[in-house]
């Protein structure tokens, strides 16, 4: 029983990170069909910007990181993605790859490729003990924060002017523009939100791993990417559930695979992805109304 609770909490915590990453990618994909590979670098930059505020009070550090990542996200949109906005999705994807490559090696250039150790909020590493179950505080914080943020974003999308514009643009970008939604503004808001989510993920991830490296965002972006697709392209709820699904699958495999097969865990995760995509190419959680028309 204890083991089951432990696994559920692990799955939720890993899934939360993937879900937020997937949501950050999905927000942009929904509107402009851009699979933003540079999302991993947004996460990386969020973590590195902690170096700027070494001796400050923790909330200040988080705030600075969030601002930095939002600024970087908006800058990449303006400089790199706006000129290619009308190109096909493949060109957009390659552009995002070039941006990712550029930012990643910019940090190699500036700070070197070697990982840097960093210790923020070490108190989060200690576990809560409930009976025989030991739950790392970080897991609880991750799950709680994700829940709060997802609720806040849902409210933002449902209730605010910008949110309604974003949802309209995601359903039919051209129609939304004809009805007076400003393309540049709605895309900028999407990038800012995506950057905000990336910054939050980077904080949680750094507390967990304690290291910074130029490639640290890759894993999270990759799984976020996959979660967005198998969750249902363009569906934000789908992206979140897809993230949870991928997280749950990898945690479950980690705890149920025989020891000698554990190094191969990711191969099994991707085998699951492979079969899911074959069985439901339109995504796991996509509604019928989003079907592509001829």
């Amino acid at each position: 029983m204890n083991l089951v609770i432990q696994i559920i909490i692990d799955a939720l915590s890993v899934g939360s990170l993937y879900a937020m990453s997937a949501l950050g990618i999905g927000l942009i994909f929904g509107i402009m069909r851009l699979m933003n590979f540079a999302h991993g670098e947004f996460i990386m930059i969020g973590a590195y910007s902690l170096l700027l505020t070494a001796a400050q009070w923790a909330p200040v550090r988080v705030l600075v990181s969030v601002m930095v990542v939002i600024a970087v996200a908006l800058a990449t949109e303006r400089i790199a993605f706006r000129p290619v906005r009308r190109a096909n999705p493949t060109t957009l994807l390659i552009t995002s790859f070039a941006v990712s490559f550029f930012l990643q090696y910019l940090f190699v250039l500036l700070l070197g490729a070697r990982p840097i150790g960093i210790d923020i909020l070490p108190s989060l590493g200690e576990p809560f003990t409930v009976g025989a179950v030991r739950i790392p505080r970080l897991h609880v914080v991750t799950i709680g924060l994700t829940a709060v943020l997802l609720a806040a974003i849902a409210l933002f999308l449902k209730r605010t002017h910008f949110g309604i514009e974003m949802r309209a643009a995601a359903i039919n970008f051209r129609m939304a523009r004809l009805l007076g939604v400003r393309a540049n503004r709605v895309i900028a808001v999407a990038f800012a939100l995506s950057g905000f989510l990336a910054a939050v993920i980077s904080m949680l991830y750094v507390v967990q791993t304690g290291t910074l490296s130029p490639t640290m965002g890759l894993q999270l972006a990759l799984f976020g990417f996959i979660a967005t697709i198998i969750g249902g392209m363009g569906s934000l709820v789908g992206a979140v559930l897809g993230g949870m699904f991928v997280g749950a699958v990898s945690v479950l495999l980690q705890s149920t695979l025989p020891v000698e097969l554990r190094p191969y865990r990711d191969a099994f995760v991707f085998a699951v992805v492979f079969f899911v995509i074959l069985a439901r190419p339109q995504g796991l959680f996509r509604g019928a109304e989003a079907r592509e028309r001829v």
Partner: protein
Amino acid sequence: MSGRSTALMRHFWPFLSLAVLLVVIVALGSLGSPIVQRVMTEALIRLVMVVGLYIFVGSSGILSFGHAAFMMLAAYGSGWLATPAKTKRVLMSDMPSFLGQAEIAPPFGVICGMAWAAFIALIVGYPLMRLSGIAAAIGTFSVLAIVYVVYSNWEAMTGGTSSMIGLPVYVDLWTALGCAIGAMAVAFLFQTSKLGLALRASREDEVAAKAIGVNVHLARLIAFVISAAIVGLGGIMQGHFLGTLNVFQFYLGITFLTIAMLVIGGAGSLAGAVLGTFVVSVAAELLRQIENGFEIAGLLIQAPPGLREVGLAFVMLAILIFRPHGLTAGRELPVPRLLRRAPG
């Protein structure tokens, strides 16, 4: 020139012109220093990979993130078979004995490696080719991830994350040129075949192509298998050029490099595949020279590590921003006036 041979020339012009250009460039390069030759051989190996990728991506319009898997499968396949048994006894003692004792001539190793990649492509492609767009791209990526994870943990066969060494080195500038021209010929014959044209029709409009009786699934599958064999050849060449194989060579780096070369050149034409490879290779090499340092007036100027990649990404971004459809925008080299049909 008789009418018939002019017509033939006109038909084969896109391939012949590129092949001749390539031979001229390589012939000039062969006069250069060993370093120039080495760089050129590397570029030709990339060209085989990009042309292989083009056979599928260019004609079907579906992006594949999985082709590095076929490079890996073919390269290790050939490596296992063609490496001398004596070397394997020492370096790969955990290998099953039938492979450990096998020792076949390099050309057969190439054929076996390519066939192995094509066979796996057939198996995974059969279900995958029903999909389109980004779903197909993620499906192919899962194939790459699975092969990568398995190969980087399969100590007995691949050396895991350390390298497999001792492969016979037989790829030089001229063999690489031969392979590249061969790959281009296959790509050209495919794209002008009935099947290739049908596949291009499905790229433009899948529903319309199906309506006129194109078996889109079959056409895609055949292109996928041929394409896997050709990128496999690229992987094999790399192994037998460097003499070592490492799983990192065949993961995200090469995946994105080859896709970027193709997209930058223009994914819709063979000329695009060749030009993209050429432009990116030249840019990368120039930046490498700067990174290694050069002397001006006795002063060694040396760039810090990372500058090459930053510069390369910058060049790629600039090309994409100014030419979103690639340098060739999907066109082949124009047929010269001499070969054109007389008006009227």
